[in-house]
């Protein structure tokens, strides 16, 4: 008992919204007596949800990469591009900077999120104390960069709306972009449903 006591050990629980401290409830679905927000020691079924959403995100990520996301049509020349072929084309057309940006936003970031969440989840399952601080930072980083993955979706949406010159050229979205958007949304949910406090629970605590 050298470490400072935790609220849990004192039989108390704080409201995450209005910060009212209450007695730790003995039922699962307790609410704050002041603002009515749910009072949970940890996010309920955090690991289950994260796993489920992560797996779902990964499943949609596969068609997101295989299916073409955008069709550019200029003077009858129809060109379907997947994410990777778009990046390669940008690179070939001497827009290496743009290619790097798109590559980072569409491929590196989602993959990074998958890996980071996987690491966090596995670590929680193993209840290890390894690199707890780094893991906390990693989680914050995931939260920060998660939104930027939507870049591709925005680009397609913008181009579709802007480039409408009928015969001369037009851009239309293809199913791939929906899957990609789903991937991003699902990973965001997954990272949200992960409770970073689990990182700090020791062996006796329950997930």
């Amino acid at each position: 008992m050298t470490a400072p006591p935790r609220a849990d050990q004192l039989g108390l629980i704080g409201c995450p919204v209005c910060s009212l401290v209450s007695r730790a409830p003995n039922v699962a679905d307790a609410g704050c007596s002041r603002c009515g927000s749910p009072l949970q020691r940890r996010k309920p079924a955090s690991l289950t949800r994260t796993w489920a959403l992560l797996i779902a995100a990964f499943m949609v990520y596969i068609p997101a990469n295989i299916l073409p996301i955008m069709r550019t049509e200029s003077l009858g020349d129809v060109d379907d591009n997947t994410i990777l072929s778009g990046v390669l084309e940008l690179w070939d057309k001497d827009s290496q900077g743009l290619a790097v940006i798109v590559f980072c936003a569409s491929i590196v970031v989602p993959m990074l999120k998958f890996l980071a969440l996987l690491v966090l989840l596995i670590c929680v399952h193993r209840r290890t104390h390894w690199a707890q601080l780094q893991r906390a930072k990693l989680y914050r980083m995931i939260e920060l960069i998660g939104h930027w993955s939507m870049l591709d979706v925005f680009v397609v949406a913008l181009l579709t709306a802007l480039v409408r010159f009928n015969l001369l050229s037009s851009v239309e979205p293809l199913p791939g972009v929906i899957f990609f958007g789903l991937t991003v949304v699902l990973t965001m949910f997954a990272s949200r449903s992960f409770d970073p406090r689990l990182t700090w629970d020791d062996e006796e605590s329950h997930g």
Partner: protein
Amino acid sequence: MADKEAPNEGIEDVPQPIVRRRRFSASWIWLVPALAAIVGASLVVRSALEAGPQITISFQSGEGLEAGKTPVKYKSVVIGTVHSLGLSADRNSVLVKVNLHKSAESFATANTRFWVVRPRIGLGGVSGVDTLFSGAFIGADIGDSTEPRRDFIGLENPPSVTHGTPGKSFELHSGDLGSIDVGSPVYYRRIQVGHVTSYQLDPNGKTVSLHVFIDAPSDRFVTQATRFWNASGVDVSLGANGLKLNTESLATVIAGGIGFQDAPGPQDDTPAPVDTNFVLFGDEATAMRPPDGEPSYIRMRFDQSVRGLDIDAPVEFLGIDIGHVVSVNLDYDETTERFPIIVGAVIYPRRLGRAQTKLAAIAAKHGDADSLAQTVGMLVGHGLRAQARNGNLLTGQLYISLDFVPGAPKVAFNPAAKPLEIPTQRGSLSQLQERLDAIVGKLQKVPFDKIGDHLDESLTQLSSTLHHLNTDLLPQLKGSLQGINKTLGSADKALSGDSPLQQNLGLTLEELQRMARSLRVFSDYLSAHPEALIRGRRPDAAPKPESPPGAPRASPASPLPGSGP
């Protein structure tokens, strides 16, 4: 629970949480990955179901083809996409792997044809303009076969007739292609009704076969009696009616074309079946001529120069074109040590028309198998000779004329010879040449030098004679002229009005007048008194007061006509 049982004294007033409505179980969250899995699986299943057969097409060049992009189209509908491009093992062709759609599975059968559609600009027109911007695509045309096949050889040129187009295909044979190309139009009464679909050299290398496709419903105008001709270019003919310029259409002048029509006269007009063979004639006039029938070969031996006699020069019988020259060869005769020229020609006896049938009938009566040899033998007996005649004085073109030469020396004719040999006679121009030669020879014998000398002598004599004339004769002539002048002057004087001659003449004439008057009186008297000739004149009666003034006065003066002065 142990922790909760040990409360501090400071938390007595900590409020109890309220109980909220129960939420649904967290395990429902597994529906999300399940749903994702279902969507993914459905995608996989759908793509597996949609995937048609993969076929390989080999092309000479992969120009314009892009892996994963170039579509395969049938009637402008996409039926597949190029999957990948590669080279064949021998690096001679490009292997294009194509993923056909599931619905286009029937295209993976034996008779399907594939070709690359690229923009083509020809004299006959422009095609595939859309591919200028959209890039090339692979065109497909399905056949009748149901036999599955995965490997195809792509066509280098698009087929000009797609499968199932109503119409008929025919085969034409010609000596050469002319300016006809694939896609050249075929005209029927100057309306385009079809086009040339392909052409190739026959295996023997001597003729060309063309395939034409006539669209329905005009294909029924192609009958057993139809004649096809090459309608390319401009047909300029200079006839008795003047210059005539004839062409099917402006396009055929440049791009070539074929025309067809039934031969004139009553014909077999049942429509020709598909792939009937026809002869492609060089021009309309040749096509419309009655059929030539079987050709016969004849040979002629000329002992003169045949400069200007070309292959294809006409062979005429009494002015009717019955064939043409096929060979001109030089020979050497050891016995006479001369160079005879052997001219081979093809003649079409049927061009003789009615004469031929009659002659053949006569020959048949003689019971000879080879009627032509018999006929020719008979004609040679009557003086038929071949002559190399001048057809055009300007260009010196020769033609072979078969004509009856009166008084031709008898020659031996061998009816069994193959080919028939027709005796020759020197041509008209060479005869003319000979005569001219003879004239020139005679002219050369004339002693122009001597004649000149004589002429010179005569001229000198003439000159001296003239000199004499000038010096001697002319002065005398002058004297004579003066004498004449004098004579004329005196004559003039004698004839003038106041000359004595003139006066005498006047008096004489008056006298004569008087004499004539008395003569009249005398005759009057005589007619009244004829007895006076015998009895003499009676004495005058008493003068009548009303008698004419002239009569009484004249009658006493001159009783007789000769009593005047």
